[in-house]
């Protein structure tokens, strides 16, 4: 089930999504995380971040909204405290990076792109650009393009760009990223969502929707992007079973990321790896590539 993204090889295409697997330590107490193809870390920022105040998660029908606000220990502590455990694993390590300015991303890419034990960087563009009045990098074609160009220049490490599905035509952003020479695209991050507390008549939460509810939306985007783009697409959004992971592969995804459902069923990734092996055996397929993009 090996796959390649840029120059990095992963033993299988079942990844854990950023922000839903920490840095692997917690899950390693419950499942054998070495079986995963890769772990995408919680977003790392240049400086430590405390994240958002107040309520951070809420449940919705078959989904959840989060507004964690990129709480993390920051680059230095990440390297000193977290990377050691990660590099001891027998799984691919992808570092999700986030910043408030283009230069922060570049700095992160320069440092992390030079470290051993890391197999790819995933650029999280769903962050407000403080230099541009707080518009998310993912929302503006020009600042998006500049960001990707700069990060691409900063490192030769395999580079993945994680798109936002709430930014209009996702394909346009995908093509821009491809044109800047990134190695893969993750489709996609969470969907913009809100809840109002009717008691206080105030916002209860505003953040990103994830979980089974969004699967058919994410799949629609993955189908569209895979049909029109020739670089690897990594699918993320609502995976909750072997069948939903398979749908992404058939649509053309070269790898899938499991997010929210890790919380619900911590061994879901292992189940999916097993399930796909069974599927391949039943269909008499020798390579996962015979599934990927098999949609007519």
């Amino acid at each position, binding site marked *: 089930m090996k796959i390649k993204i840029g120059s990095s090889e992963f033993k299988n295409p079942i990844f854990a999504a950023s*922000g*839903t*697997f*920490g840095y692997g330590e*917690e*899950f390693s*107490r*419950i*499942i054998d995380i070495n079986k995963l193809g890769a772990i995408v870390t*919680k977003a790392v920022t240049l400086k430590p971040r*405390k*994240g958002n*105040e107040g*309520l*951070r*998660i*809420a*449940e*919705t*029908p*078959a*989904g*959840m909204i*989060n507004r*964690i606000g990129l*709480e993390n220990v920051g680059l230095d502590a990440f390297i000193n405290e977290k990377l050691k455990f990660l590099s001891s694993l027998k799984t691919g390590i992808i570092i999700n990076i986030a910043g408030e300015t283009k230069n922060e991303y570049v700095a992160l890419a320069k440092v992390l792109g030079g470290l051993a034990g890391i197999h790819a960087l995933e650029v999280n563009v769903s962050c407000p650009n403080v230099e541009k009045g707080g518009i998310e990098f993912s929302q503006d074609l020009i600042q998006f393009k500049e960001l990707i160009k700069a990060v691409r220049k900063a490192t030769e490490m395999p580079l993945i760009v994680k798109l936002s599905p709430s930014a209009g035509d996702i394909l346009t952003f995908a093509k821009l990223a491809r044109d800047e020479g990134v190695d893969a695209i993750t489709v996609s991050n969470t969907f913009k969502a809100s809840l109002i507390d009717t008691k206080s008549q105030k916002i209860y939460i505003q953040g990103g929707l994830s*979980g*089974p*509810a969004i699967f058919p939306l994410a799949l629609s985007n993955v189908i569209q992007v895979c049909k029109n783009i020739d670089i690897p697409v990594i699918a993320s959004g609502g995976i*909750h079973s072997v069948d939903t992971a398979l749908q992404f592969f058939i649509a053309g995804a070269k790898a899938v990321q499991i997010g*929210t459902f*890790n*919380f*619900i*069923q*911590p*061994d879901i990734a292992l189940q999916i790896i097993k399930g796909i092996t069974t599927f391949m055996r039943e269909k008499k397929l020798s390579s996962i590539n015979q599934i990927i993009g098999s949609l007519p």
Partner: protein
Amino acid sequence: MERKIFFEKARLKENRKIGHNFYLLKFITSVNPVVISPGQFVDLRIRDNHDPLLRRPFSIFNYEKGIMSVLYKIQGRGTGMLSSLKKGDMIDYIGPLGNGFHPFKIGKTLSVAGGIGMAGLFYLQKIFNSIPLLIGLNEKSDALALLDLLKESRIQQNRVHIAVMEKTPEFFTGTATDLLQTFLKRTKYDLILSCGPEAMMHSVYKIAVKKNIATQFLLERIMGCGMGVCQGCTVKVKEKGRLNNKLVCKDGPVFSGEEIVWT
């Protein structure tokens, strides 16, 4: 060394109503009692469907001979669904999670629970049965049900003191904090352990601070993962003079009164 966390489907031994407001759920577990520390919790996946989606955390109420139990109250859809499970049904749990109560000396310690908050203090009581446990309840029926539960759970009744809001001749009339005040008048304590509604715990804290008594509180938060990865269950704490976030599921659920930023 980190203790083992179990993740398995367990068969229900029973799930029955206790008095008018509480339910007791018992399931067969592979958890070894050695790994359970009082104050820890289990995260339950109530049914296999995706609405409600998230697991629900519940304190480990009791453990006896391979049977774990949780005591719960119906709050919304998750606990409502939980109450419809029957003996023989399967439930999927992760646990024990969290750290439980911090190490302490039993000597001059007291526990105070408000309502269903008692679920977080029972197992502690079972292990250290010399600690006085004060429980505040709304109705007399709750109190009578609780007495039965103590018997069933083999907990010494003479150390459990019940306050009931409803006026009755059998029980102290008032809140758990009212009862606490009478205890503090009679005896000097070094530490109060508490679990209950946040407002009640805040009152307990204020009382304790005045008397210079240390405190530990079992906090509740809406949880995404229950094991320290989603960062959804933060509590603001004071640490070395600075404000910081801690995770109720992983760093807690028990926090000292001093570190909590009360709101």
